[in-house]
């Protein structure tokens, strides 16, 4: 699309061509000294292969942060005690590694930490992004290890010991065991079943038949009572809460077939169904296992909440300042917060004047000015200068904690969702069993000598495997297809919910827009300078500033050198370019004398002057993403309603809505407001997909029928989203809807085929016209068709990616 080079390390566009790094003999362009340092570190440790093995990186992921000394304090013994278990010289700690995105990352981390003296164990779990560390604390410190991770471009976050228990790991272990028992059991029982079928043709001694049934019984029993236990538990729970889900028919099918087979085994009944039971359990368990794996890809809650807050804070005890872990703060503590640091707790500003960024919490796109006495929210970022905070509430009592609780509650009130396909499948299983029993009894009275063979044919021909496979196969194929298209599905139900969506709700700041100011318009206020040269001078001065508004000027290449750059707190920045002093910021700062600060609209004005006269004003604005308009139009063309819900001020929301052609919009929404509006939509019968990135979107994301969060969004938003969208574009939303719809089509085709097959084969089998061998071929054939049909999904959408790129 454009010829801007992407950084070799972090894939951000390379604006300044100065930095290159020599990898395997080729000079690769990188975007900043930080990325250059990381790439050289990786090369010098002999791990250049990381670059050829990793997946395509997310732009910006892996870019190192500019904080140097921050990790030092983790070498202290009291910090070690707070974040690690110490046993003699050996210390064990768990670190959440932010910025990991593929398995090559875990290799890189393990290999580089393995060569650090004193580290005896470094184990990265790429699913949970957790690094388990064991090291000799006399040889190396936790701080050194964290600093090393930071140098590699990751964002490490030590976890307090109590939050290190990983329930998802235990769940995965149990699920694996259940899966193995079911699969081995199925294979064994299938072998015995083949022997029993063969006995039908060639004759089998009654003793041997009884023996094979007994053996099948032994193998099936653990499959039913161990592997299928979640289904029984789910059924019981459903009956107790008077909301029987799809687990109930499944449990009846498994339990009924098992009980009938046990009876046959011990009382010489007409047939055993052990093979059907184990196969059914196996396919269901596979489906659940794949779903669980997808779910575990989402980031876990405890980390999500704490990663927004700082690890350590500067606490004032009388006249002395000490660095303490943030989780030790209590109400009434005095905390010093430097410029650029996040606010660790809700509280009151005691000393200092600054502006804070609350965009993630409220959706407000402009920095807010705060003076002594104002309240500050945990999770907002202090932008301008050092301030003193009196802690009011901490942890779960903060606004941030409330939003997190609100989103958990919303998840429970999410519209009940039962997969149509699964429900159909399980009812059919029950119907098959009933029919089979009737056939056995009926033929047993009419022609006892043929009863066994015919019942067998009925059961085999109507084997539920095609039905059981119809949905999981399609969803598994859709999941892998979506992940190739850079959409990570973390909730298996999401695909079907998205396919039935009727309405898409967007958040504004950071979702439809970039969430970063850009220069929207430059107005000249004097005739002396050309617009371009004013822009260049401004860029030169702003490039030396760390203020977030300064990033707006990054798009302009800074070719001129600026000297003596000074920031005036809350006013602006000044600097000397070509021997002339320039002032950028508020009108009164840029030039002497009274000025009407013409904040005519919602845009931020940055004035430029030489101290005497104003020469220009730059209007900064949070611009929509490049493909926002196209995405909205395409979604509308697909028949979806679109609305916009934002916490930002009305003019800003109205302007974006008008630009993108969205007529339903709401501004200044609190998280609670957003939830209420969502409920109104859902009550009107809409199936709603929410796309949002802020912490304030988290409750709506979990309350919506399905939700999508961009990968750059707040972790709390990601944990509440069903699909995580990688990349800087919105087009994947369209792709998600397209693939989800095709998936549902495939599921319907599969179910239609399975039902059609069963409906035609069943009467023939009941009438005794299908011999067991033909029934077996028919069964395999129908399963194969279902799987092949689902696999068509893996090839779909390849054209979309080209179109989106």
């Amino acid at each position, binding site marked *: 699309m454009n010829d801007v080079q992407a950084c070799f390390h972090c894939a951000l566009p390379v604006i300044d061509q100065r930095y290159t790094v020599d990898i395997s003999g080729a000079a690769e362009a990188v975007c900043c000294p930080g990325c250059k340092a990381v790439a050289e570190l990786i090369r*010098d*440790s*002999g*791990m250049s*292969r990381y670059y050829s*093995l990793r997946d395509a990186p997310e732009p910006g992921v892996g870019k190192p942060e500019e904080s140097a000394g921050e990790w030092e304090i983790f070498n202290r013994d009291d910090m070690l005690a707070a974040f690690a278990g110490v046993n003699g010289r050996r210390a064990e700690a768990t670190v959440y590694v932010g910025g990991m995105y593929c*398995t*090559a990352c*875990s*290799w890189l981390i393990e290999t580089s930490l393995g*060569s650090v003296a004193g580290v005896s164990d470094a*184990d*990265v*779990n*790429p*699913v949970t992004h957790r690094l388990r560390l064991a090291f000799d604390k006399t040889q190396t410190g936790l701080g050194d290890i964290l600093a090393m991770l930071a140098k590699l471009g990751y964002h490490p976050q030590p976890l307090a010991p109590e939050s290190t228990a990983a329930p998802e*790991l235990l769940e*995965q*272990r149990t699920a*694996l*065991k259940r899966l*193995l*028992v079911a699969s*081995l059991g199925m294979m*064994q029982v299938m072998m*015995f079943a083949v022997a029993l079928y063969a006995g039908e043709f060639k004759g089998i*001694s009654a003793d*041997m038949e009884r*023996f*094979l049934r007994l*053996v099948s019984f*032994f*193998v099936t029993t653990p499959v039913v009572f161990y592997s299928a236990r979640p289904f029984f538990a789910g059924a019981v729970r459903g009956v107790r809460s008077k909301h029987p889900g799809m687990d109930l028919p499944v449990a009846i099918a498994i339990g009924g077939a098992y009980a009938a087979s046990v009876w046959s085994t011990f009382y010489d009944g007409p047939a055993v169904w052990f093979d059907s039971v184990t196969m059914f359990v196996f396919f269901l368990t596979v489906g659940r296992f794949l779903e669980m*794996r997808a779910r575990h890809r989402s980031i876990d809650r405890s980390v999500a909440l704490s990663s927004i807050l700082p690890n350590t804070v500067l606490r004032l005890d009388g006249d002395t300042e000490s660095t303490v872990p943030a989780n030790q703060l209590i109400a009434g503590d005095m905390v010093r917060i430097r410029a650029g640091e996040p606010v660790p707790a809700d509280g009151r500003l005691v000393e200092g004047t600054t502006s804070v960024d609350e965009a993630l919490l409220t959706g407000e796109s402009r920095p807010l000015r705060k003076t002594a006495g104002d309240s500050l929210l945990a999770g907002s970022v202090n932008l301008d200068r050092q301030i003193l905070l009196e802690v009011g509430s901490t942890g779960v009592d903060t606004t941030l904690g409330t939003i997190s609780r609100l989103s958990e509650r919303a998840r429970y009130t999410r519209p009940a969702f039962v997969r149509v396909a699964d429900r159909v499948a399980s009812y059919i299983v029950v119907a098959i069993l009933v029919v089979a029993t009737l056939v056995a009894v009926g033929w047993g009275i009419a022609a006892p000598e043929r009863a066994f063979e015919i019942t067998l044919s009925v059961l085999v021909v109507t084997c539920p495997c095609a039905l059981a496979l119809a949905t999981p196969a399609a969803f598994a194929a859709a999941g892998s297809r979506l992940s190739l298209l850079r959409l990570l599905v973390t909730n298996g139900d999401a695909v079907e919910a998205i396919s039935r969506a009727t309405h898409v709700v967007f958040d504004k700041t950071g979702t439809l827009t970039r969430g970063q100011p850009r220069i929207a318009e430059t107005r000249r206020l004097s005739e002396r300078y050309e617009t371009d040269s004013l822009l260049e001078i401004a860029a030169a001065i702003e490039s030396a500033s760390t203020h977030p508004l300064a990033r707006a000027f990054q798009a302009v290449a800074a070719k001129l050198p600026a000297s003596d750059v000074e920031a005036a707190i809350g006013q602006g920045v000044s600097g000397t370019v070509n021997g002339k002093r320039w002032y950028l910021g508020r009108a009164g700062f840029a030039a002497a004398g009274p000025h009407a600060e013409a904040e005519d609209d919602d845009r931020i004005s940055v004035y430029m002057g030489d101290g005497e006269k104003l020469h220009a004003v730059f209007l900064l604005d949070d611009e929509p993403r490049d493909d926002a308009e196209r995405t909205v139009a395409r979604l509308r063309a697909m028949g979806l309603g679109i609305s916009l819900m934002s916490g930002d001020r009305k003019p800003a929301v109205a302007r974006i809505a008008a630009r993108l052609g969205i007529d339903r919009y709401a501004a200044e929404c609190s998280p609670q407001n957003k939830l209420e509006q969502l409920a109104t939509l859902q009550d009107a019968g809409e199936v709603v997909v929410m796309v949002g990135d802020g912490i304030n979107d988290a409750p709506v994301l979990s309350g919506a029928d399905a939700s999508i969060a961009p990968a750059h969004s707040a972790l709390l938003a990601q944990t509440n989203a069903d699909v995580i969208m990688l990349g800087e574009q919105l087009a994947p939303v369209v792709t998600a809807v397209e693939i989800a719809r095709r998936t549902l089509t495939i599921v319907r085709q599969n179910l239609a085929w399975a039902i059609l097959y069963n409906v035609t084969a069943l009467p023939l089998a009941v009438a005794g016209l299908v011999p067991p061998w033909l029934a077996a071929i028919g069964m395999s054939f129908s399963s194969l068709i279902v799987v092949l049909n689902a696999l068509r999904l893996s090839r779909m959408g390849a054209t979309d990616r080209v179109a989106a790129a």
Partner: protein
Amino acid sequence: MSILYILIPLALLVLGAAVWAFFWAVGSGQFDDLDTPAMRIVLDDDTKPADDP
């Protein structure tokens, strides 16, 4: 055919042993990471850094 009366229970014993071994392996954390090992076999062929013992 009567050999089956011995062979099948024997096979079940082996099966039980396999299940036990798998449970032990899962319990000791060998299956906690299902993604990286697939990669590691490719990666270990890389040139070792000079300071790697």
